[in-house]
Structures are given as C-alpha cells and as structure tokens.
C-alpha cells in the first residue's frame, strides 16, 4: 500500500514575503503551495477516511499563528510595523489592492483547472476571485474576463501556475483599462 495516498505537495515551504499579507487586498492565506494534487483515497481506505475527514488538503496549516509558515507570514508584517502589534504605519496613506505574490500564485495553483475552464467561458466565481487578488476593481471585471478569454490559448499554453500568472499580468499590463483598474503587483 502506498504510504502517500493523496494530498498537497507543499513545495515552497518557509518562503514568505514580509509585509505583503497585512494591510493589502483580499489575499487568501497562502502558504506557498508548489503544485496541488487533490484526490480521493483509493478504494477501501476511503470508507474509513470518510469518517475522519482527513482526506486531502485539510491539514495544510494549524489554526493559529506560530504553527505554520503560512500564518507566520501574517505575523511577519505586523512585527515590521512595530512591537505594539499594530498594522504597519508606512502603508497608512493607501492600502494596496492586490494580494501578495505568494497568495496570487497559490490561488492560481489551487484553482488552475477551474480557471482554465472559466476563462474560456468568460465568467465565473473563481475567475472573479483571481481578478480580486490582482487588485482589479469590480468595475473592470467584464473587461478582465473578456481579455483573458481573448488570449486564452496564449495564457494557458503551459499547465504551470506561475507561467499563467505571469501571462495574465502581462495581458493586464497591455490593456489600458485594466492597467488603470488593476494593481497586479510585482512581475
């Protein structure tokens, strides 16, 4: 029996960008997922896995900070902002709209197959969430979706989350409306 039944391969452990997570757009608890392969356990084991619900990516990180690299990232930002535990003051004037690079990359990694489909369809909840992590205003989402749809072949040429992210950002940069309405961050 295979010891590794399923799960997430967390390839980029310990990589965190201080200052990115806090006081920025709606990122989602990224922790540097390299690639993500979610799957049910085979056959017999499923019956018992069913009742423990430890089926796959569930145990990516502990619930509070200090137990994982992911939540540490949230913490790193604050420590930078001063020992009083307040948000970094240097960012006070304007909050960044985009999520951190790691969060963006994790999002594309975990949702790549869905994004590919929704991008071709030109709409969808996951596509909208991608637009948000790239700091795109809700008002430009139709334009965002149309642009991605129009360049679908190029953008998804490789099944590689990082490459897809770079391609999307490049498209956003080349589009006047999107370049103004989004704040994609680095790349």
């Amino acid at each position, binding site marked *: 029996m295979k010891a590794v039944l399923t799960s997430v391969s967390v390839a980029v452990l310990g990589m965190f960008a201080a200052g990115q997570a806090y006081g920025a757009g709606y990122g989602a608890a990224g922790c540097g997922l390299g690639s993500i392969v979610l799957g049910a356990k085979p056959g017999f084991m499923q019956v018992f896995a069913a009742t423990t619900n430890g089926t*796959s990516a569930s145990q990516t990180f*502990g*619930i509070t900070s200090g137990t994982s690299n992911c939540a540490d990232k949230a913490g790193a930002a604050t420590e930078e902002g001063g020992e009083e535990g307040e948000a970094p003051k240097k960012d006070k004037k304007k909050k960044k709209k985009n999520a951190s690079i790691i969060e963006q990359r994790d999002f594309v990694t975990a949702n790549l197959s869905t994004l590919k489909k929704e991008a071709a369809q030109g709409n969808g909840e996951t596509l909208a969430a991608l637009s948000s992590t790239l700091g795109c205003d809700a008002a430009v989402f139709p334009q965002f979706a149309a642009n991605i749809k129009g360049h679908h072949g190029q953008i998804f040429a490789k099944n590689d989350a990082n490459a897809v992210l770079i391609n999307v950002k490049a498209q956003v940069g080349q589009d006047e409306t999107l370049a103004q309405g989004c704040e994609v961050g680095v790349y």
Partner: protein
Amino acid sequence: LTILAGLFATCGVEAGFAFGAAVARAEPDPARVAALAESPAWKALLLYVPRWGWRRTSIVDAPDFFLAKTGQTDPAAELVATLEAFGRPLDAYPKIDDHPLCRYPARRALLTRELGLADDAWPKPKCPAQDRWLGYVDVDGISLVFASYFLNNPASLFGHTFLRLHRRADPELASLGKPPAMLDFAVNFAANPTTSNPILYPLYGLAGGFPGTFSLMPYYLKVQEYNNAESRDLWEYRLAFDAAETRYFMQVLWEVGPHVINYFYIDENCSYVMLLLLDALRPELALADDGFLLITTPADTLRAIVSREGLVVDDGVAWRPSSRGRLLARSRALTAEQRRVLHEVVDTKSLAAETGLPALAPAAQAAVLDAALEWIDYDEALAGTKTATLNQAFQDALLSARAKIDAPPGTLTEPPASARPERGPRTQSFALGVGVDSRERSFAQAEWRPTLHQVESPSAGYSPYLQIEIMNFRWRSVVDEEGRTSPLELEQIRLFDALSLAPLSALVRSPSWRFAVGGRRDPHDERLWRGSFEGGGGATFATSDGRWTAYGIGLVEAGLSQAYVRRLYAAPGVQLGLLAEPLDTTRLGLTWRTQREGSGGEPALTRSRLRFAASYAFREQAELRAWLERAGGGLTPSRPEIGIEITVFH
C-alpha cells in the same frame, strides 16, 4: 511608605493576597463564581460534552488547554484557576503571548460579563500574536458547510461539515467589490491518521486513537477538494451571527484551535465538534444536547442547526455543485437535440461537423461545450493543477472553441429545497414489527438501526440510490406450534452494509456495487449462526427523475457457518432489484436473489429469495413498512414470511 501602608490597610481585607489595584477590582462575588462554574455558558466555552443530560467532561484532551489539573472534568476548579491565572503579573511571562490573558480572550470576555466585572478588571496587555491573527483572519460572518454524500465515493458515505468564515468587506478596498467567496477562510476539524494500515485504521478510529486537530485554510481549497476532486456537492448555511459574535467566535477559536481532541469516528467527530464550537459561541443554542448519544452523523448535526429558530438566515442556504452536479445541471438545461449533440461530442471526443455541433446557434454551441467541459472535469476529477490525461486533446479543442464564442455560461438550476441534506428523517431509528414467518409461526421483532439509510426507505434527504447501514441489530421472538413464546433473541447483525447504485447514462458510467459484513441465523437451521461477508458489482438503470430504478449485481458471499462440517462456505450469485418511488412518501422495492452455496465435501445447493417491501414515510419522523419474503431452494421447504413494522427516527 506610610501612605502605602495605609492603602494596604483599607483594601487588605478583601484582597489580602493581592498586590495591585487591578487585581482587587477583579475580585468577584463568590456566589456568582459558584453559579457561573456550573452554568451552561462556562461549560460550553470549555467544550464540555453533554452525556445523559449532564455536561461532565470536556471533549478537549490536551492538558495544556486547561489551567487546573482537573479542568477537563471539574469546571469549578478550572474557573478558580482561570481567575487566579488572570491575576498573575504580566511580567511573570517572558513572552506576553503566553500570559493567560492573551491565551484566553473568550474566557476573559465571558467572566467579565457574567461576573459583572469592570471592563478593566484585569490589565489589557497587547498580545501581538493574537492581534496579528485576528487582523489576518478578518471576518464578520459564519456559514456551516455540509459536504454531501455521493454514491460511488465511499469517502462521502456520511458527509462532512466545516465552517466558512466570511471576510469583512474592507471600506478601503471598496472598489474591489464584495470580497469573493473563494477568498474566504475555512475552518476544519479532522483526524490526523497516524497509520494507513487497513486493520489498524478503523480500530484507531473507533477507539479515538487519532489526534484530531483544527486547521484553517482558504475556502477555495475546500471547494476544490470537495466539488472537484471528490465530486461532492457543498451546501452552505449562513448563520445569523453578527460581526460582534463572529469576533467572539474567533476568540473562542483562538483558545481552542491549537489543542488536540481525540477523534472518534462515530461520535466525537468533525460535525459534533462544530456543534460544540457553536454552543460555545451562543450557549443557549444547546445544539450538542440534541440527543447525540452514540452516533453523530453530519446530517443530524445539520438538522439540529436548522431546527433552531432563526439560526440559519432566511434565504441563507446556497448550493455549490460538484463536477457531477454541474454536468447533470448543464445537461438538463439542453434541448433534446442539443443533448444528442453533447452525447455525440463526448462519445467521439470530437467537434467535427458529423456531431452536429457546428450546425447549432452559437449560444447553443456554448451550452453544449460547457456541458462537455464539465464532463471532463467529472470524468478526470480535475482539481488544482491536475490536467486532463485521457482527454487532453479533446479538452484543448473544447476550450479553444469555447473561448471563440461570445456567450456567457448558463446559470445552474439549484435542486429543489426538498433535496437539501437536512430534509428527511434523522439517521438513527428503532423499528418494531410483527408477522408470520416462513414456518407459519407468529413473531415479533425489534430492530435498532443507528445509521444511516436503507434503500427500501423513501429517499427524501438521502440519495435514492444509496444504502448504508452500520451496526444494525435485529431481535426476534416467535410463538411456536404449541403456543410457547420464545424470548427475544438476536437474529441478525449487520456490521456494515452498503449498496451503491449508480444509474448508467450516456455521460456517467460508473459501476454499482455492494459490500456487506454481518452475522445471522443459518438458513439451514435457525439454531445455528453464520457470519459472512459479501461483495460484488453490477449496473443500474434509472429514469431521469429517479422514480424508477432497476439494477443487477453479481456477487460472492463467503463466510463461516456452524451448519457445515468444515465451517467455511462460499456462495456466488446474483441480485436483481426494482425500486419505485411513485410518491415522495412511498417507496416500493422488489428484490430477487439466487445463490449457489457450497462447502468443501458437501453437495452444493441453490438458495433463492424473493422479497417485496412497501414503505410509507410519515412527516420525516416515522415509517410504516410491510413486506413479503419467500425463500426458495435450500433444505427445508418454507412458506412466505409476511410482516409489518413501524420505524421511529430519533
């Protein structure tokens, strides 16, 4: 110095042991402390478990969750210890995060409120770790999420529940619109199996041998896991907790989250822990008091939540379909002609003119392509970065064609409210029946069915294609020819009994299967016992509305019987079934089974059984069933057995 001494003299009586004004202000009324120690609110916050109507023990097994040595079983001691610990000087801890005031923000809030203390009764240290975490998980609403059962995936036999935490809309990010659901947080409680040995796994699970831990993750991971990797529908129930309550809930999670709770499959499982957490947040809900004595199923916990007036907000139920659900919904939305094209496209994995696709209007083409894309999602369980391997070129062609058509994807029609998982009866039931058996004796029988659903029962709230029973016991008493009544004796045990019927269609072709382990009176001689297991596979056909189902399964039964000299026997055979649900309340089942049974050295014999059962459900609480069963073959000639029973769901 004199002034200081004077100060001590005035407050020394009340707070003799204390050395600061802050502590003195936190000196509560002993009567109130005693009352609070036994209050539902305090016990709920310590995650005490109701057993036989009384909360005696906390479900948390990690000693470091408690401040008193006896905290897991003595709420009063824990309360005293907490009051003492809150009074410790701040500099007693090198890291302020370790001070009880930083570790137990929810306890502090509860004690302050319930003991009528001043808001500043204890000092308010800055707790960097907690502030960071609360700043990061910045949420203002909670949903309970149910991951449904799904046939042909044993991992979903019972369902699962977890929480979705809704992000607070940040006014500074107003231009981004409402925070997207996918970027919300999920809180999960699951076991961390320490073995994958198939023998040890269930034993550890039953005995609480696996540590259960909480985890926090992006909601999109859960959506990918359930909807796409496992093809299970998600049902979200938005709970009526406001921002302040959600904040308190985060403090509860902060206290409880890092600690281990031993995971028991059948009762102290994911869904039960979710109930305890919600009880900690709002003790008057008393969700865990809803009679979860031996077995807790996620659907029953969902029923408890839905039963509390106003707890689920109006129109707060949302369906997030699995890949299979999306495929079926998109396929249903097509016209007959479009559906024919879809089947052609999927069968030939081509978009060529022969499929009829190019002849359709662009919007219709888009609808067909979208359904075909869902078919690949389902067929290959696409999730995360997984790519289509069997259909790679086909998928590329679909995507490329779809991207060229300027039409939005159609909206998916939500299943009717009657299909929601909280509908239907509770999973545990007791049945009492009477009848005349195959030897023309009257009998009375009792059956305990702790979980989950029988395929002969009306399917509301469950799948019409799924039977799962665990630890089903039946006792029977008969009146013999001379009028003597035998005592109630165990007649049958079904340790595990599953029948999963997967209707074949042009798009979904999964096998149906059966697996069962149990013991029963031997058909040769009812004074003897046999233990057996059986397994097999086959195919199912059903009408699209699910009202009529026919299946055939080839199976092998094997086991040990006291009737055979060599004990061991094997019996290959077939089972054919016809199920009909003409009304939502009524289900009819006809089953025929024949087997060739043999044991080494003895002549093989053919046994068969024909059974008809009609079941009628009363308002999700009770069920009436009548059956006629005729055994054929075997050694002793027999008459048909007829019986009638009433089942009460509890």
